[in-house]
């Protein structure tokens, strides 16, 4: 089988990010929070400080590693919540139709009409800053695309012969949705999911940048960018490295999404074997 470049590169970047996040305590040179030393403040990148240090003398390299934990947790968990909500609503709406479809449609339109970041901001304002509120805010605000896709897939799939055959063979509604509809729409859902993870990482950065995400002094990529804003001309490494980490992770997730779409097609699966 010919390995697809986008899948390999995307997968590698994503795995690298997860790896970095998991192994941060072993890979980091210093503690990202405690090891502040004003003697080393604002050192540019060197052999001692790979990514340089910030105004309080903390090692940017170590902070970027630990920041991966927050960014990836938010990206993965919030997108999982979104996918579950979106698929649950969209699939049932498309399959059952009727008033339930109307309700879900109205809700989706509502979500699409409100900018999700603004909505997330509002939720954060109520819940207060912190990782849990970040997960909830981002998990509740980005399901509309997944929902649309799931609904459209369910609508087209339910007239397929095998779905009707399943009805004739005595399958219940829930069983049809789980065994017949869901596996057949999983491809686009996973693609949307990985792309959504990328945008959740960005949203986390945005919310943290605005000071609503993870509270300092704990590092997240977005909050690091936020703190580095004032020194962007004098100490550009403060913003370059967390920015690069966000860029590579989101790029990796997008490439991975593209690559997965090719594999998840059962026709291409058999060509491989």
């Amino acid at each position, binding site marked *: 089988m010919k390995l697809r470049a986008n899948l390999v590169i995307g997968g590698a970047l994503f795995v690298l990010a997860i790896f970095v996040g998991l192994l941060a305590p072993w890979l980091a040179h210093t503690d990202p929070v405690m090891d502040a030393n004003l003697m080393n403040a604002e050192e540019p990148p060197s052999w001692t400080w790979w990514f340089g240090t910030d105004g309080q003398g903390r090692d940017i390299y170590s902070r970027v590693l630990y920041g991966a934990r927050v960014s990836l947790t938010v990206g993965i968990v919030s997108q999982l919540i979104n996918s579950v909500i979106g698929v649950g609503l969209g699939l049932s709406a498309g399959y059952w139709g009727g008033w339930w479809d109307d309700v879900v449609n109205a809700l989706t339109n509502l979500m699409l009409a409100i900018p999700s970041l603004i909505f997330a901001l509002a939720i954060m304002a109520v819940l207060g800053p912190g990782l849990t509120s970040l997960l909830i805010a981002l998990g509740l605000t980005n399901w509309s695309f997944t929902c649309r896709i799931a609904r459209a897939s369910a609508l087209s799939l339910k007239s*397929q*012969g*095998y779905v*009707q*055959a*399943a*009805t*004739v*063979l*005595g*399958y*219940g509604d829930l*069983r049809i949705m789980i*065994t*017949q509809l869901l*596996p*057949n729409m*999983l491809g686009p859902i996973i693609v949307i999911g990985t792309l959504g993870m990328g945008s959740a990482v960005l949203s986390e950065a945005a919310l943290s940048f605005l000071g609503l995400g993870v509270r300092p002094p704990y590092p997240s990529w977005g909050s690091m960018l936020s703190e580095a804003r004032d020194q962007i001309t004098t100490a550009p490494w403060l913003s370059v490295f967390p920015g690069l980490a966000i860029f590579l992770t989101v790029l990796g997730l997008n490439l991975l999404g593209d690559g997965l779409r090719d594999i998840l097609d*059962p*026709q291409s*699966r*058999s060509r491989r074997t």
Partner: protein
Amino acid sequence: MTGPPLIEVEDLRIDLDDGTRRVAAAEGISFRIDRGETFGLVGESGCGKSITALALIGLLRQPLSIGGGVIRFEGQEIQHLSAARQRELRGNRIAMIFQEPMTALNPVSPVGRQIAEMFVLHKGKSWREANQLAVEALASVRVPAPERRVKDYPHQLSGGMRQRVMIAIALACGPDLLIADEPTTALDVTVQAEIIELMRNLCAERGTAILMISHDLGLVANVCRRVAVMYAGRIVEERGSADIFRAPSHPYTQGLVASLPRLGSRAALGRTRLKEIAGVVPAITNFPDGCRFNPRCAQATDICRVVAPPTDSLEAGGFVRCYHHA
């Protein structure tokens, strides 16, 4: 045969509701199928044969609905059963196979799993047992190397193999009635013969009755003991299948039989045009009064255009709906 027939349909009427009015897409449908019997329903597209089958398994959906009549399964009325009870019948006691084996299987699920699901769903088996039974089921429809084939996805199988898998799924739970809606229309003629043979043998072994729906009179007569011919939503003639070829009674059936191409007829009679029935099938919203075949019937008289003919029993068994039947 003692006891009630397996399935008995009495004066069934199926309504088509297009939002402004109701019209009968099929009416006065009556027939019975005994245990292990083979019964054919023949007619052209849109005559109501497929919706009759859907009514039997309780799957008429808007805009179609049952407008009257009774359907009894083993003597019990089933047309008003709750959705859950009807679901218990479907697949378990009454199974169905479709015209399109290409699309009737879930493309992302191995065929073995799809067969096994029937045992899990209707017989409460564990997946381990069900997978074992699936291999046996696949072997019973003569799929070679079933223990390897169960892992195949539908697109890896040929059309004939897929239809075999469909039959395996349909017969998995040992249903009492198998409804076959144009089961071989999409297949090659040679494969068609194999599939029909397989279906007939398996059902005969297990005592499963067959309700076969087709536009192919020859095929139905070959498989079924009795045949009902439908025209424009009504059964016009019901006979033993041998009789229907030898001495068709209703003018429509006569026309059908006459229009079948005969092997060797060109050698005997020279180059002749195939017989056809003049005119077209009336639209469902515009059925003629009286006998619905009257505009196309050479023997039609005044009464045919006013009053629908009643059913007339024939001496040889069966009935016909015509004032002028042979």
